[in-house]
């Protein structure tokens, strides 16, 4: 496992996401209330870019506590901690360990 500094924490405001390249992988990083999360940027459905997607907490939904992202294409929803699809947990995307350290966002792959 290798740690990669991918962005400054200030570059990803709360409630937003950013797509970064890490070791040849396209990774979607999100900031939810100061906590950073990272998942594969490619939706398993039709390949939509999850980093351009919608954070569940930013949508007009009932349960805003859910930490997940909706693909911008067809709204497939993935848990940001596990990568699992919300209504079909047998499938999902890769989730990465992401942390903030000294103002940097660090992804471990």
């Amino acid at each position, binding site marked *: 496992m290798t740690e990669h500094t991918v962005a400054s924490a200030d570059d990803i405001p709360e409630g937003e996401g950013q797509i970064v390249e890490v070791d040849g992988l396209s990774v979607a990083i999100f900031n939810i209330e100061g906590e950073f999360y990272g998942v594969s940027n490619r939706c398993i459905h039709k390949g*939509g*870019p999850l980093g351009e997607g919608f954070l569940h907490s930013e949508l007009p939904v009932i349960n805003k506590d859910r930490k997940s992202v909706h693909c911008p*294409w067809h*709204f497939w929803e993935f848990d940001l901690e596990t990568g699992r699809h919300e209504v079909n947990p047998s499938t999902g995307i890769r989730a990465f360990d992401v942390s903030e350290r000294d103002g940097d966002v660090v992804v471990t792959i």
Partner: protein
Amino acid sequence: MSELKAERYPVTEAMREAFVVDIDFHFEPAMEKLLPYVDHPGAKRTLSLDDFPPTTRYWASGYATPHGGNGRQTHGVAETADDVIDVSEKLALDMPILTPGYNTLPDVQNVVLKNEIVRAYNTYVLEEVSPAKENIKVLPALPQWDPEQCVEEIELWGDNDDVVGFYGFFGHYSLLGNTQYDQVFEALVKHDLPLALHGGGTGNWPQKDLIGNSIRTWTEMYGLVHPVRAMMMVGNMVMNGVFDKYPELQVVMIEGGLNWVPFIKMRMDEVYQDHPEDIQLTERVTELGQEYLKKQPSEYIEDHFSFSSQPIDIPKKTKNFEAMLDMTNAKDSLMFATDYPHYTLELANWTFESSAIDEELRENILHENAKRVFRI
């Protein structure tokens, strides 16, 4: 205005290099764009005051997403030639075939209003939009509820170089095996143009029907209603002898799905072979003086029908995808479509990502089949 955020779409170099024909690019101008072309004074007044006429449409995909909305403008709206050119560039589409976005139009009660909308739409798109660029092609709207008016539109626009067919619906409307549509088929054959049929009245299985009254979810409504309607349309046209009377007619089924095609080919052949005598009671076969159909139902489906790729339901296992493409005769019948700008949008990336699709098949799907069927 088009509001497409290009970064949201994984367009690759290979997609840009390929020549991509999109057979279902919905062009849906606001009523204000059409009003200059509306002639009927009462219709002009009403459409000026009240915009698009109301329908009995009830179901909306927005109930099933956290976003709300109706899913029809998820990826923007194309209203002008510049919009079409801009979106095509961003989505790596080389030849958009514009299809009317008014999929609920048959559900409008007032025939005068909807005939005027069709007339104005066809005039606007063919006078103001398609001339802007050579590769913009058009499937003008057919006022399917009025066969005589359909013939008028076909005669009016059928020789226009940008017209590649005409656009009607499969939905909760009369099936086109009915002989009242013979005049429409005759006009299409005369102009050597195919009939394109798209799911209409999206998500509208009337509630008065016991099935419609039982449906609760968008998965049932959108996921199953279009394919069921499409199956019924194909079966009805075949079994009522449309293609014995019009052997040159081609029909393109758009957004009805694909994977059911092998099923109905086998099912219809078997039942027809078991019980063929009632074919003699159908009006058109009676008129033709035939005892039976000239071919098996499956042969008509292979010879006369093509299918849009969207929605493509790709099996997870490559060998199953290969079998599906083989059993659906994809090499000759499958044509790429995006369904832009609806939330169900698909791009051409899937044609590059499976070993089940070789270069020849990909070219057939992306352009060769469309060029042949639409006489491009």
